[in-house]
């Protein structure tokens, strides 16, 4: 054995350090900073940032074949387990009664998906191949697990920038949406008050809703079944009222552990070679475009509904149809309330917002189905 050869070995960490590593570590630090000090989706961006840091320490091997991050990736991202388990927890936190009380709000959940397909088209125009363009488009679902699910199936190589874009912009909703709201609605429209005198929703309806929805969506869009069924399973655990243990597990240990591991595993794919290229920049811009287009489409559809209803619907709730549950719903209600301190449209906005959540998952499934068929996967 050559003892002297140990010395270069000792500096291997530094000698293998590339400029790319440095840039990515800087990116990781920025993500961690935003997560901790700006509270931008910290539960996801903090683990993503930390995972990115680890992926760029030379020779640490955590993203290599037997590294911990790679193991988490294989166990939970490649199998899609983590986003689906997160959905079980999210489902157990959603209350669908505002939507069931005003079923017509569900239409806004469709309008808020234009961003997906518009962004897909733009991405194609920018030269992305179809599988990547569709994955970029699904940022417009404005729903983390849906974006991750679809991107993993169609273009896993873009998973990291897509996840980062989806979660970052979701946190920036309060900055992205208000200018568009002001631009596209008149003050008079924003002042519209909506009565909330809903049909009483029975417990039975709330229990059967997740089951019926799983069936309907599953038969219409089989590709959406994993996402919608896990969301609805979580919801059923809550509404059933007889399995509090399982509901609590879904809302706590299952979602917390999955979220931590998902973030680390996504972050660990952020190697310099995969992330530091023009595409990442394009994806960030396209993601922003998707958010804006969703909002615009939602607002315009809200205006249409307002017009058709004879001015009884406040078009602001259209902006809540983009998903980004429950943020967008609250923001729409707050914007109306800012305009008139006696205007409360929270229940309507939350109805549109939960509809947006459903619409996002359905659109994700349709995208998978259509693009999968074309690409022959």
């Amino acid at each position, binding site marked *: 054995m050559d003892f002297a050869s140990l010395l270069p070995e000792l500096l291997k960490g530094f000698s293998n350090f590339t400029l790319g590593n440095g840039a990515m570590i800087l990116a990781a630090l920025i993500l961690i900073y935003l997560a901790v000090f700006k509270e931008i989706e910290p539960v996801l961006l903090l683990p993503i940032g930390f995972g990115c840091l680890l992926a760029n320490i030379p020779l640490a091997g955590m993203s290599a074949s037997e590294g911990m991050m790679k193991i988490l990736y294989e166990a939970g991202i490649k199998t899609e387990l983590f986003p689906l388990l997160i959905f079980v927890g999210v489902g157990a*936190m959603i209350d669908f009664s505002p*939507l*069931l*009380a005003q*079923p017509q709000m*569900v*239409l806004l*959940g*469709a309008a808020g*998906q*234009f961003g*997906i*397909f*518009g962004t*897909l*088209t733009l991405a*194609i*125009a920018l030269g992305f191949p*179809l599988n990547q363009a569709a994955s970029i488009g699904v940022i417009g679902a404005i729903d983390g697990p849906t974006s991750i699910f679809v991107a993993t199936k169609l273009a896993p190589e873009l998973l990291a920038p897509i996840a980062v874009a989806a979660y970052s912009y979701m946190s920036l909703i309060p900055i992205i949406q208000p200018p568009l709201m002001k631009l596209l609605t008149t003050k008079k429209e924003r002042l519209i008050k909506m009565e*909330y*005198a*809903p*049909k*009483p929703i*029975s*417990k039975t*309806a709330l229990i059967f*809703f997740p089951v*019926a*929805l799983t069936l309907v*969506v599953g038969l*219409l*869009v089989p590709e959406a079944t994993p996402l919608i069924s896990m969301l609805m399973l979580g919801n059923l655990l*809550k*509404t*059933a*009222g*007889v399995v*509090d*243990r399982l*509901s*609590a597990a879904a*809302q*706590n240990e299952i979602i917390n552990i999955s979220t931590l591991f998902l973030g680390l595993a996504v972050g660990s794919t952020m190697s310099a070679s995969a992330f530091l290229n023009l595409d990442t920049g394009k994806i960030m811009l396209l993601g922003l475009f998707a958010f804006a287009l969703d909002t615009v489409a939602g607002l315009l559809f809200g205006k249409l509904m307002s017009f058709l209803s004879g001015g009884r619907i406040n078009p602001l709730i259209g902006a809540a149809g983009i998903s980004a549950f429950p943020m967008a719903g609250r923001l729409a*209600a707050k914007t109306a*309330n800012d305009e008139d301190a*006696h205007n*409360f449209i*929270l*229940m309507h906005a939350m109805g549109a917002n939960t*509809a947006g959540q*459903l*619409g996002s998952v*359905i*659109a994700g499934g*349709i*995208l998978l189905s*259509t*693009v999968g068929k*074309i690409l022959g996967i």
Partner: protein
Amino acid sequence: MNALLLSLQIAALGMGLVFGAILLLWLMMILLTTLTREKESAADSAEADSTAQADSKLQVALLAVSLALAEEESSSAHPLDAPPTAIVSAWQLGTRTRQMSEKSNFRRHAQ
């Protein structure tokens, strides 16, 4: 430009399908709420209706107040801070116990 054309076709088809699926969901929701409302006993439905309306108005009013308060408070207010963590119930033991003392209970606790 073939790819762009294809993508426009996908967009049109996709949004059409999204709206189609959502319309079916709308139908399903109407069916569901109608069917389950009819299952509620006819006797107290009128009463229930008005109670529910009152309830929901109360709910809205409460929401309004809380929203307003949150607004006035310092920016660190988290009006919806606590997630609805379910309390862990008796589970196996409890269920079987109940099952023993009541043979045909419909649904007991308002969850």
